[in-house]
């Protein structure tokens, strides 16, 4: 079979469980070769259902998936030779050691990579003879990715690859993903971590309630907020939150949008050095006190909050 078309393409995917729960509601994507593409969204947004449909593990209720131009009905075994998968949660056999596990997975592919090479690449050489049950969380996750890479895939699917890992393990995994991408591989990952999506992905789709609500490069998405900076402040005194007030802050120089979170006001701002003096003046004019003031770079979190009115991780 030949590689034709994009590594991953899907049109109008829908998945309904038990005829009731609509997990995915009309989702279309096209991922180009060499891209690292992220599906970003809160838990329960339909990311895992989507990625499992793309991986050919779940049948969509309707819609079409193509991997290098082929559907999952064409020749599933050949498509599986081309992809490597790390599921959200797989507990590999605890009584096998790391090398045995990698060699087992290698044996399923017609042209796998050498186990030693993969061990080395994933920094598991020292643990080659350790039982899987004895590995740390980060090592287990690297092993999961190793079982995906040992088949020498062209596409890597990673479902929440760094969830629950310590910062160092996360960075190690990011390096591994980048290295795969550098060799020409295509990556599709799901995450609910903003920083992961921003640092790792060239393309992003923000998913909520089974639909893509925004798509583009991370910097483009942030650009669409209108301002790259966020000014957050609190004012003591009465009534700083009704609609009149929000409009008033909106009219300050260089402010693109305003939203309120509890007692904090957040302004999306293009140029903070123009906004902040005007803000201070306005507070003083009201005879109120400024309780708190901070500025930061706008993030994907702000994009998500602006689009949905909710935070990605409600915790």
């Amino acid at each position, binding site marked *: *079979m*030949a*590689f034709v078309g994009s590594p991953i393409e899907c049109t109008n995917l829908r998945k309904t469980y038990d005829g009731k729960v609509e997990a995915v509601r009309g989702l279309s994507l096209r991922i180009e070769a060499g891209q690292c593409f992220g599906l970003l969204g809160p838990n329960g947004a339909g990311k895992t259902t989507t990625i499992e449909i793309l*991986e*050919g*593990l*779940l049948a969509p209720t309707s819609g079409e998936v193509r991997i290098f131009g082929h559907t999952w009905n064409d020749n599933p*075994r*050949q498509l*599986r*030779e*081309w992809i490597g*998968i790390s*599921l959200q*949660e*797989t*507990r*590999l*056999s605890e*009584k*096998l050691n790391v090398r*045995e596990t990698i*060699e*087992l*997975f*290698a*044996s*399923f*592919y*017609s*042209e*796998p*990579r*050498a186990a030693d*090479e993969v061990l080395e690449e994933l920094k598991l050489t020292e643990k080659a003879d350790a*039982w899987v049950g004895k590995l740390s969380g980060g090592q287990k996750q690297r092993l999961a990715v190793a*079982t995906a890479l040992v*088949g*020498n895939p062209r596409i890597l699917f990673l479902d929440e690859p760094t969830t629950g890992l310590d910062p160092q393990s996360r960075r190690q995994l990011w390096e591994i993903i980048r290295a795969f991408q550098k*060799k*020409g591989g295509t990556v599709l990952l799901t995450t609910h971590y903003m920083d992961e999506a921003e640092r790792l992905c060239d393309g992003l789709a923000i998913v909520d309630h089974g639909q893509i609500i925004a798509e583009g490069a991370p910097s483009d998405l942030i650009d669409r907020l209108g301002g790259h900076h966020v000014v957050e402040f609190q004012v003591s005194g009465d009534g700083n939150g009704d609609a009149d007030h929000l409009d008033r802050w909106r009219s300050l120089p260089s402010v693109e949008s305003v939203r309120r979170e509890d007692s904090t006001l957040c302004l999306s701002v293009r140029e903070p050095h123009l906004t902040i003096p005007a803000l201070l003046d306005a507070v003083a004019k009201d005879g109120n006190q400024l309780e708190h003031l901070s500025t930061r770079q706008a993030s994907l979190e702000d994009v998500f909050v602006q689009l949905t009115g909710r935070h990605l991780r409600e915790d």
Partner: protein
Amino acid sequence: MYLCNSPAVTCEKTDMATTERSTSTVALRNGRWSGYRHLLWARILELKREPEVVFWVFIFPLLLAAGLGIAFRNKPADVTSVVIIDGAGAQKTLMMLQAVPGKSSPDKGSSIRAIVLDREAALKGFHFGKFDLAIESNSDGSCTYYYDPARPESVLSRAEIDAALQSAAGRKDAISTSAQSSSEPGSRYIDFLIPGLLGMNLMNSGMWGVGFALVEMRQRKLLKRFVATPMRRSDFLLALASSRLVLMVIEVGLLLSFGVLVFHMRVRGSILSVILLGSLGAVAFGGVGLLTACRAQKIESVSGLINLVMMPMWIFSGVFFSYDKFPAIAHPFIKALPLTALNDALRATITEGASLGSQSGRLLVLAIWGGVSFILALRWFRWT
């Protein structure tokens, strides 16, 4: 760029200078059976590294055989233990019993052990089963026997003691008889038990080794991870079945050797027939295990199912005692159970030396159970 998946390539792990996959420094190429061999080897390693498996599959049946074999060994059952209630004629009755010729030496096959106790202690001992029979000598020289008609050994000892007392008192046998004792290997309880334990063990390890293992892998999402690779699903099931066969040979070998070495059991049929029967049994119960596990998502639910399936066979299929004890009307149903067929076939082969050809009915029962459950299991099987 084209990828070919040539079936003609059978070599394994050879360098491929012409591979298009430039990302890998050492290119490997796997043959058709590479996945199967690795799956089988992984399964065997896992079993070997699981101490519980080693205990339950290999050690436990041996302990069971040893325990039951010793508890039900034949000789102690032949000692008739009687109590004489202390009274006027008690000592005389005791002397008459002790004078019975040839009855006191244990290697003649049977012996009488008699003691004298006061009435209360004697009857208490009798009621608790310590004595098979209580004898009370009356003042007129007659005897009263206390026996329990529900206890075979009590009925037996009544007849035996009566004969002994009568002949000691001078009764002459009308015809001359002689008896030949028979506790040859082949007719003892242990000879009945070992084939039954073999069958039960094959059922246990088939159901747990296939059913439980599968649901555990499903719960761990390992099955899902496997089907996300180009692994052939048939290879996976075949490897699971093969691991059962490897284990079966060890199970059968251990238990039979134990019977032969410790209990001097005699295997009359050919070892090949026993192994073939064991394989058929292992595959049949592997199929039943696969069916039991084909949809269950949790190990708790499959444990219940496995016990539910096995329970009737523990009771009815003649593992510890013959199913002849159940009413004749139930026999056709009992004989249709796979464990009954396996136990009957193993017993006939091991203790009677029956050929496999003469037991086609039993083999058919096993084959149908295995085949039908395998087909249904494949139809309903859930990988995710």
